[in-house]
């Protein structure tokens, strides 16, 4: 059942949303796995099912009848989809942690960042010891200067890049074995994007985590992920090492996704767009 070299193994995952105007198949029976200490990039446009796949891993999706999840997700010898609410809580935080897209909406505006990081520690670790010290260590780890002073800062006092660092600190608070970064840099400037990606790469080496990076931009996949999976309308259309997929994409959708990224010093009158009729 569970292969020992893989931290996460997803088999035949299907996600269906029920609506008044009929059902929507967001994910149609996909299978993939993440080896220990590796990074998998999940690439696709909005609506391709990449975020719901990530959320299904810790049962964050709405309960039936609104949403039906079927298939198996194996993590450390347990099928996450079969766990009860209490059991899944032990996986959240210390097993699998998330970084979400919009740091400004994911942080609670009425609590200090120190409090919010401490909250994650209190929730998921039984004997945390000196929480205050741990929070300051975490703020230091994610590259926030003067962590003692920043402990009492509110989210609105920080820039977007700093807020995303706080989100990463919250995710790392319980030393997760698998980190799921859902579009961690979409809302950020290119220079801050580079800082955050470098930070994640550095932390991955230091803490020996596995990472699932969800993105719509092939640009940040290069040099960061080991393997890449391309999703299109809830189906895997391409899977392989980053080098191979970037160099010789086989599926027309992958080619189109790579082609539409504007590049520096490339003479072109029009940007390539994706022709969905041809691709599908």
């Amino acid at each position: 059942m569970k292969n020992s070299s893989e931290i996460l193994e997803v088999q035949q995952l299907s996600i269906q949303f029920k609506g008044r105007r009929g059902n929507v198949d967001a994910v149609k029976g996909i299978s993939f796995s993440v080896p220990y200490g590796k990074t998998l990039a999940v690439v696709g446009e909005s609506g391709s099912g990449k975020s719901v796949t990530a959320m299904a891993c810790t049962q964050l999706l709405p309960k039936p009848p609104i949403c039906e999840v079927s298939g198996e997700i194996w993590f450390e010898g347990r099928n996450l989809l079969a766990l009860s609410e209490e059991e899944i809580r032990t996986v959240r935080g210390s097993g699998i942690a998330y970084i979400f897209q919009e740091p400004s909406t994911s942080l609670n505006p009425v609590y200090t960042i120190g409090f919010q990081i401490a909250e994650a520690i209190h929730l998921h670790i039984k004997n945390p010891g000196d929480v205050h010290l741990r929070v300051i260590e975490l703020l230091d780890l994610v590259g926030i200067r003067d962590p003692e002073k920043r402990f009492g800062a509110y989210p609105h006092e920080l820039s977007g890049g700093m807020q995303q660092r706080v989100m990463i600190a919250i995710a790392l608070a319980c030393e997760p074995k698998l980190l799921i970064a859902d579009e961690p840099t979409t809302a950020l400037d290119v220079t801050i994007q580079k800082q955050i990606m470098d930070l994640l790469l550095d932390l991955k080496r230091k803490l020996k985590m596995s990472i699932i990076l969800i993105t719509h931009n092939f640009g940040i996949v290069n040099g960061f992920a080991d393997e890449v999976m391309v999703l299109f309308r809830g189906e895997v259309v391409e899977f392989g090492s980053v080098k191979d997929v970037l160099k010789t994409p086989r599926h027309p959708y992958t080619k189109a996704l790579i082609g539409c990224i504007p590049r520096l010093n490339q003479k072109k009158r029009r940007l390539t767009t994706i022709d969905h009729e041809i691709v599908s």
Partner: protein
Amino acid sequence: MSEVLLQVKNLKVHFPVKGGVLGRVVDTIRAVDDVSFEIHKCKTLGLVGESGSGKTTVGRSILKLAPVTQGEIYYDGKEIVSMQKRPFFPYRKKIQMIFQDPFNSLNPRMKVEDIISEPLEIHFKKMSRLDRQKRIFNLLDKVELSKDSMMRYPHEFSGGQRQRIGIARALAVEPDFIVCDEAVSALDVSVQAQVVNLLQDLQAELGLTYLFIAHDLAVVQHISDSIAVMNKGKIVEQGPSDEICQNPKQAYTQNLLDAAPIL
């Protein structure tokens, strides 16, 4: 070289920081500090910089949406900073803006038809209802949205479609000059490519002039004829777009180029 449409001379926008019990001014933030540039007719100037560099404030001060501390802005030869509200009114029709966030810049309680017809009611008071409706049809067609979207609300559209509605609203009053403030930054790469192409097609068709504000140099190089790089309220480098991207003279520009992902 075509004639200059917009000229900005020594523009300064300083925001006072108030503090203490009495709310006295204790400091000033120099959001824009001595910025000068010009844009020729039917051309695009790209304004690049990190967040906080003052690029949005420059764009907003052209529409009188930011308080200008000092400096002059000439639009088609006329100084507009010192202009009173009433004489500036026709310029509000000529200069339009496309905003960054397609999720917050459309009123969620208004139908697309109302969103696009609102500027028409202000600037084309005498237009009949039928003509107005015809104009909206044409605009939706121009931005490649279907006709039935008129009766729908913003939440029923995707990010890229919403940005198209924003573009249709800006085009409704037949402007000559559009400030695109991070108009494509919030979109997926594939949708970004569609919207950039649309903006270029519209420029060729209608003879528009753009101030294209963004932080991604690759997109800016693609769409712009010339580029100005801003840092901490000042323009650090300015020139033709290919020259800036191929031989940057300033370390800051080089940093921005290095940060761009390489494929």
